[in-house]
């Protein structure tokens, strides 16, 4: 499997993991690392907003839906109101259709069910049009 995993280190993509669960934080961080994507981790929607207020920005945000203090729906709305145009992928365990709709309408670009895997993450990147050119100028996606 290792041979098939794309390495996006050259693309210098930066991602933000927003999840209040430690196991998910560790897993999503490692998944992104494996793809060569530099990433930060925050524990809830409020911290996601704060980190943007402090001036940081990201190409991709993996946003969990249910979090204490501030959930993913609220955080997504606030980030969009702030003018943040990063691609935001909602990541959550199987949600009711209405909850998904509410999350998408908050400003998501994409939605993926947890648990995340390498192939689901690659699918997120593909669907959000993250193109990478390697040294031979060949597109990965």
């Amino acid at each position, binding site marked *: 499997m290792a041979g098939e995993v794309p390495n996006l280190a050259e693309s210098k993509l930066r991602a933000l993991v927003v999840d209040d669960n430690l196991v*998910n934080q560790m897993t999503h961080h490692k998944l992104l*690392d494996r793809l060569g994507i530099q990433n930060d981790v925050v524990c809830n929607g409020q911290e996601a907003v704060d980190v943007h207020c402090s001036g940081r920005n990201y190409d991709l945000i993996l946003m969990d839906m249910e979090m204490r203090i501030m959930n993913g729906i609220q955080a997504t709305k606030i980030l969009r109101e702030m003018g943040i145009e990063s691609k935001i992928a909602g990541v959550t365990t199987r949600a009711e259709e209405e909850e998904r709709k509410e999350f998408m309408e908050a400003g998501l670009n994409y939605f993926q069910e947890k648990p995340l895997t390498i192939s689901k993450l690659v699918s997120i990147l593909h669907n959000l049009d993250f193109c990478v050119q390697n040294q031979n100028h060949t597109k990965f996606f």
Partner: protein
Amino acid sequence: MGKFMQGYLDEQFMELEELQDDANPNFVEEVAASYFKDSARLINNIDQALRRGPLDFNRLDSYMHQFKGSSTSIGASKVKTECTMFREYCRAGNAEGCLRTFQELKKEHATLRKKLEHYFQVQASDQLCVINQLQNMC
């Protein structure tokens, strides 16, 4: 992973093993340690909440949502099944169902913990064997 773990861990655990590399050679064990630390806290919270009457089903459901989330992420399939059942009983306001399911959940959780401890011990001693063999070849 073998028959020893069959039924207790699903393909998500294998995904975690795929992520383990030279940069993080103990990644899976570290994730497992976080899971058991987190789940011990949740079990304690749920235990306490179940002793208070009348039951606060919303709070219990919220704790169990977290528990299910962690369990799903590590691939703990039997624990996850009990979490799902518990949440259904919460939604139905069925206190007896919650209590009964929680006892099962704690049993499955304890079994999983023992199995994983053994699994990591076997892995560590396998690695030691390999190192010893390589050293003997030199």
